[in-house]
């Protein structure tokens, strides 16, 4: 090979790198290891984390422990899916493209909107991109957020908007506010970070009265199977996190941001879109489309800088939704609701515990605990449970409180143990 190239050594191939920029030592990294040794080393690190397979799990707060059907991982482990890249060459990417088209269709059904894109990085950046989209559509640059927005999402929103001179204002009053005519969008999380469900039509009315868009952010996508479709309630953009659709928690990523909107706004949407077309023999096929919105064509005038997105996580969710389907997803959502209602009943019945809110919830709710939240969670740990999130940072006004999530993984016995532990019952 060197002879064909016409150089004497491999080193000579690097003659274009000036000597003073050549690294004159070996990198200070460990020496290479065999596969067996790699597995042993990483296995030891994995063993130092508490995982939802070996523990009763009540911690949600935007990342949810759900049961993962075996067929999902089996299918996404096909190398034809996971070792391919962005489907630029449509004729040899129809597998990926058709799956994305199916995802877009199902997300339209779940959100009640006309168009869904082919994923964003995560729920937080999807919310930030939705706000940027609203700023482009309304040509206004104030973004108003409801108190129920996940605190991390609010932080990411501020980070994203920081360079553009746009302002993020948090409206602390409960219920739909009166918004000024300089507001681009009103962002409401459904259910809210503390689990409570909002009546969306009133929020849509408030936003539209001010000429703003209503953005509904969803962190627990399973709730979409049970709650009024946000699009039907008047939302203009629905975005958030679809990790609940079969994607492992994986310490917070990779997860699956989604974003859906109305047909009239499609040219302002960020991210990839797949559309139907035909080939030269008039057979149906799918392609990446409306790319003139995107960075590789439009460069500094693109609707977003996103390129690589969360393709394989989208495939996970598409397979998951196909498996559960119309009846299964509904049944699963009802099961989550029933577990939470049972757990709330137990909390109400416990003399030392109290629910922080009276209103309706889905699978997550805040519980006031006696003494301190860390102590309550430590008791839960002793009882074999990850008991929830200490709300000291997110909702200090509640006093000692814990955000508890009950999915289909929580058995009645585990819920009983958790409530006892949080309440300080002797084990």
């Amino acid at each position, binding site marked *: 090979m060197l002879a064909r190239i016409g150089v004497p050594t491999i080193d000579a191939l690097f003659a274009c790198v000036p000597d003073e*920029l050549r*690294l004159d030592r070996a*990198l*200070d990294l460990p*020496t*290479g*290891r065999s596969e067996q040794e*790699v*597995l042993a080393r*990483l*296995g*030891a*690190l*994995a063993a*130092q*984390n508490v*995982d939802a397979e070996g523990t009763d799990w009540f911690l949600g707060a935007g990342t949810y422990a759900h049961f993962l059907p075996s067929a999902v991982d089996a299918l996404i482990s096909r*190398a034809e*899916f*996971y070792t*391919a*890249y962005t489907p630029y*060459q449509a004729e*040899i990417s129809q597998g990926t493209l058709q799956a994305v088209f199916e995802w877009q269709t199902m997300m*339209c059904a*779940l959100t009640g909107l006309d168009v869904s894109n082919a994923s964003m*990085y995560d729920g*937080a950046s999807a919310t930030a991109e939705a706000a940027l989209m609203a700023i482009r559509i309304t040509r206004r640059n104030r973004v108003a957020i409801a108190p129920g927005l996940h605190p*991390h999402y609010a932080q*990411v929103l501020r980070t994203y908007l920081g360079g*553009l001179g746009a302002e993020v204002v948090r409206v602390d009053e409960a219920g739909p506010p009166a918004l000024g005519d300089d507001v681009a969008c009103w962002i409401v999380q459904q259910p809210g970070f503390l689990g409570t469900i909002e*009546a969306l039509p009133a929020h849509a009315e408030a936003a539209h009265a001010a000429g703003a868009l209503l953005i509904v952010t969803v962190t627990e996508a399973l709730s979409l199977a049970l709650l009024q*479709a946000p699009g039907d309630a008047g939302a203009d953009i629905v975005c958030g996190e679809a990790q609940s659709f079969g994607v492992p928690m994986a310490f*917070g*990523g*990779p*997860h699956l941001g989604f974003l859906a909107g109305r047909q009239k706004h499609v040219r302002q949407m960020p991210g*990839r879109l797949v559309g139907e*077309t*035909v*080939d*030269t023999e008039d057979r149906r096929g*799918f392609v990446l489309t*409306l790319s003139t919105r995107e960075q590789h064509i439009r460069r500094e005038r693109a609707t977003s*800088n*996103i*390129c*690589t997105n*969360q*393709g*394989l996580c989208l*495939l996970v969710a598409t*397979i998951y939704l*196909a498996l559960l389907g*119309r*009846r*299964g*997803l509904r*049944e699963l959502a009802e*099961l989550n609701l029933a577990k939470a209602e049972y757990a709330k009943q137990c909390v109400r019945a416990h003399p030392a515990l109290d629910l922080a809110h009276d209103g309706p919830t889905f699978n997550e709710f805040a519980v006031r605990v006696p003494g301190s939240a860390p102590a309550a969670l430590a008791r839960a740990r002793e009882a074999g449970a990850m008991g929830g999130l200490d709300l000291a940072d997110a909702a200090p006004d509640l006093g000692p409180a814990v955000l508890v999530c009950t999915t289909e993984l929580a058995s009645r016995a585990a819920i009983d143990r958790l409530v006892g532990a949080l309440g300080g019952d002797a084990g």
Partner: protein
Amino acid sequence: MKRNAVRGLAYEEELLFEISRPGRRGADTPALDVPAVDAGLLLGELARDDVPGLPELSEVDVVRHFTRLSTWNAAVDLGLYPLGSCTMKYNPKVNERVARLPGFAHAHPMAPAEQNQGLLALCFELEQWLAEISGMDRVTLQPAAGAQGELAGIMMIRAYHERRSDAARNKVLVPDSAHGTNPASAALNGYDVIAVPSGTDGILHPDAVAECMSGEIAALMVTNPNTLGLFESHIAEICDVVHAGGGLVYGDGANLNALLGVSRPGDMGIDVMHYNLHKTFSTPHGGGGPGAGPVGVKEHLAAHLPTPVIVRDGDGFAWDHDLPHSIGRLHGNHGNVGMLVRAHAYICALGAEGLKRSTELAVLNANYLLARLRGHYHVPIDRPVMHECIVSDRGLAETGVTTMDVAKRLIDHGYHPPTIYFPLIVPGAMMIEPTESESLEGLDRFVDALVSIAEEAKTDPETVRGAPHHTRHRRLDETRAARRPVLRWQPETDST
């Protein structure tokens, strides 16, 4: 010439919604062990009755559906995937196994740090390794992909200037050969973008950069090696020019696979850069992600890193949220950790020597391809390349065959085409990146295919222009898709 592919089983498969049959389902739910709840009664108008748009399928239906779909994809595990600047190298299987360990796959990002010490240790170590590989001082693992890394990097540059009360800088320099994400990331930060022309030798020259420098320039974004596969030999001097003018230099790490153990961006004068773990560090591309785009910075930018950062805490590790000059949080959690785990396993397996060897072989393969293609295809800038090479369709002009046709004809030979029509400064560019994963025989077969297409363009141009001929679909009408967008399936309505 040996054929790379013959025609085999080729299945048809409708959409999920078309094969749906009422009453079927592919996954069950556990028995209810708590009292049942009537959602309609409990939630009233807040609830919906049904999601009629979801399909109804058995597990076998779903498994066959997606297995059949998978057979319509090209993939690295099927063969050479020479997509330039995407580094489609082999993805070791041990990475997948490691990422699925319960302690990684089922850990929660908001559990207390003391219950995730293994993950914090892994992330901390990966930060240190990436810093050593690139010559940077500190690393954040939050960005979920290269473009989000660029966004973070440019935000840190803005924060740096603002902290020095040097906020008049409102423009970013981007070479005309840059990836589209560079100008888009700068614009998303409110910067105007100024294009810097490359020289006729395909690389940037200090004079051209100096001419663009002023008190308005916040940064230069540069990819090294650049998208022509050429090492920016004047990079150190260029960084000096930008620094002397008060600007900073952003390094796009998309092409880092050419530099491992050979040269380090931090030693060239780069202030901040991203790494594409899905390119250089072998995490799979997933049909379009997830990737991971960690960002490395020099010490003078460390105060602006996204929050939180991992710090040592006694014998263990903790999250530090107290960073008053941070650009803020960039990701809802800690980044695409599943990808970080895979990259960690890759560096662990290869070690210092293995990483350097991978770079050497990647550069050897690209130069070998160029040497064999010279004479068959026009080489716009004929210089020794790093990890990828560029040819164009200029020599085929008389035949009417274009780069698009060559790309589609390659599909008939069983290859994924190279990146085409990029970089924009080379008309009809084909950007070929073989990576270190290919053997000599594999490279020879690929060149044979390209050479035969160049000959076919002269003898039978219509066959080339009508390609692909052997795929499930013939050439797809992208114009129609954009003009009349159909972005979801809808049941056919009765038109009467």
